[in-house]
């Protein structure tokens, strides 16, 4: 498969702290790619550099063979980045937000309105379409954020912890939509530390720890015949016997 996204020696250094240490990855087109790692591993930093939101200290990012940082406008037109809940205008209704997201990208008004309605239906937000986004629950906000990233039918989707705080029903619906998108040739890059999700959803995975890639490839290649979670723990390390906190007790000693 051709690469949708290619990272070459991508590095980000803050002062003396190396957040991302020369990562090189090839993300195949049409893949569901998971970036997994513990908290502070550098997943979000990597995604931000890939989406043109954080200038790398070194290295390059190519989207369909175009340098992202040299051609930011065309890169942004081809990618969909799921905003965080506080990165949307929540004084708009859900429907207005989607139309706004489409119009900002210069899309035709009639087409944007049609797609907005389709997305609202697909994400079970039809009833909430005319409510202010500020009144949405956390799960509904996640859905409207994802919908706003999809309205222009991007070729690649970047999602940072997309299922965090989403209820199981909404989560299942989101997963179906993303699987459908991948089946039509779309590429999804997600960051997560939920192994069960990655194992179930992703075709490819890269394990990142301390800003380095510890393993990358298809799910089977990275798991190497083992359970992905155990393999992840082996690669990342840091597990130890349960600490005994003598002050932490549930009330039996009272």
């Amino acid at each position, binding site marked *: 498969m051709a690469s949708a996204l290619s990272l070459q020696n991508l590095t980000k250094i803050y002062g003396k702290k190396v957040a991302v240490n020369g990562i090189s990855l090839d993300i195949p087109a049409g893949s569901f790619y998971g970036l997994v790692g513990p908290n502070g591993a550098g997943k979000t930093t990597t995604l931000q550099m890939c*989406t*043109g*939101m*954080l*200038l790398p200290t070194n290295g390059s990012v190519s989207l369909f063979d175009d340098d992202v940082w040299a051609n*930011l*406008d065309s890169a*942004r*037109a081809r990618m969909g*980045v799921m*905003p*965080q809940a*506080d*990165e*949307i*205008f*929540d*004084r*708009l*209704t859900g*429907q*207005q937000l989607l*139309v*706004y*997201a489409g*119009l*900002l*990208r*210069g899309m*035709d*008004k009639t087409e944007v*309105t049609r797609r907005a309605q389709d997305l609202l239906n697909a994400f079970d937000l039809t009833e909430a379409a*005319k*409510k*202010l986004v*500020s*009144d949405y629950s956390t799960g509904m906000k996640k859905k409207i954020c994802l919908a*706003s*990233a999809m309205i222009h039918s991007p070729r690649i989707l970047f999602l940072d912890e997309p299922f965090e705080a989403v209820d199981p029903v909404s989560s299942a619906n989101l997963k179906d939509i993303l699987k459908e998108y991948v089946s039509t040739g779309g590429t999804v890059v997600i960051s997560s530390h939920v192994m069960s999700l990655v194992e179930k959803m992703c075709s490819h995975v890269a394990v990142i720890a301390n800003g380095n890639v510890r393993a990358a490839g298809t799910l089977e290649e990275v798991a190497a015949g083992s359970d992905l979670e155990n393999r992840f723990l082996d690669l990342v390390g840091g597990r130890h016997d349960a600490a005994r906190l003598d*002050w932490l007790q549930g009330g039996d000693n009272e």
Partner: protein
Amino acid sequence: MKNTLQTFSAGRLNVREIWSIVKLRWALTISTINKSAFQAILFVLGCIWSVALVVGVWVGSFFLARGIEPTDSELSQITSVIAGIWTLGVVFVVLGQLVAFGQGGVSARQLYRSGVPRANIRWSLIVSQMLTPSGVAIYLSLLAVLGFLSQRFVNGIFAGIGIWIICAICAALTIFFAAALSQTIATLAMVIIRNKSARNAVTVVFVFAIIILSQSSSFIGGYMGSQVGDRIDNPGANSVQTMNFGWFGTVGVFLSWLPIANMVALPFKLVVANSMSALFVVISIVVFAATVALLMWCFDWAMHRDIVAGPNIEETSTAKPRGLGIFNSASVRSPFSAIIARMATSWVRDVRYSMSLILPVLFVAIFAFQGFTTGDMHVMIAAVPLSGYFMCLMGLNMLAYDGTAFIMHTYSGVKGRVDWFARSTFQLFVALVMQILVNVIVLAVPGVVPQMDIFWALTVLSVCFILGGIGLTPVLSSLLLYPVPSADQPIRSPQGRTGVQMFVPLIQMISIFVLFIPGALTVWICMATGNSVRMVITTALIVQLIVSVLYFIGGNMLGGYILDKRRLKIHTTLREFAQLMR
């Protein structure tokens, strides 16, 4: 562990906890200073101002006291005037906090979530406000005023250090009351703004309060200046001639009985040993204690309501369903028009924006009030250019008002130039509508416009303010951002905002004056070539109007360029601001 949990649930007063929260407030201030050199400079300037205030008041009070004759009438006048000025000062600070600067410091919600009992939150917020550099400076200044002036009249048991100890206690209680009042009103405001009807009613009260305050302060300012100046210049002057404060003195007598100022008046009553003074002291203490108890109860109630009420109820499920609204308009079909539509929607739904529309109307009301009281309605025409000036300020710091949601524009690849032109076009539209409204009011009131020529000249001047100011906004707002309250908590001010909020409009004001150089040069040239005044003004206004249109276009182009260049840095800044409000 068990004991700690019990303390939290019982909600007992815990001095150590209160002190820890006060230190937390200081730590937050230091953290803000460490993060930004700009904030550090403003903090140092604030400290210099505080020191200058203390030194100035101590020296001024010392010399003023020397010039006072220790007579009963002087004592009475001084008591009422100090009570009146102090009350006005407190009202001014409270209104300023509500209308412009917000309630700063640590968040009651965060502390509550951390398990701090409400009583401790309440006390720590009040003590925190008292122990800021400006709070300490005002305390020391008040101490000087009370100490030096009451010392002039004292005899008997309170002579010497005794009166200073009483003044120190009274000044501390006065500052405490002011801090408690300001915190309570700000917290009550957070509850009130949740309800549209209550919000509208309170807005009307605010407008009237500001009108009266603006008139009182200008009158008293001028009057006090002459009185105090005379007193310092002529220490031996006749008291009846120089210390007649008329109606203000009478109002001051009334105010000195109220808890807001009775502790200020108390040292002056204590120096006189008679039954009336004793009665005043007893009543003052009782009224003060009762009002403090009531304030504490109100503060506690409002804080609890604000913490547990959740999101703004008025904007939530009770609101009727909305369609696409302005986005339905056929003219909304591009990034440019979409941003305008979003701005229009935000202005309707976000109280932070709608507050800025009050200013032009407020100035019309202030000048109308002044005109009616002085019998000279011509003063009201000043509202015409002032409206334009204030409307050109409204877009300042606009990206900070968007907050982290602005990042959505970057994800969508919106160009800075398009972004700023859309914002400025909307701003221009609102400003011109407000200008027309103000002009219609000014024309409708009889006796305001002496000549139509003057009216039109001021209107063109105002349009120049609007065009030039709005053209300047994209450049300044792409370079200088400062934190603003969130839409959910419009009264709560993020740490480090107050100083910057005064500083940035000052830069805007100076820059606008610079933008008027072409008009000023035209005046100079026309006058040098011997033209008539009418010709000079007409030519200068035409030149300035043309130049202002160019400023508008050029400012947006430059602002867009700067926005594109600084976009990622702006994202970081906006994320930092969002952190401050959490």
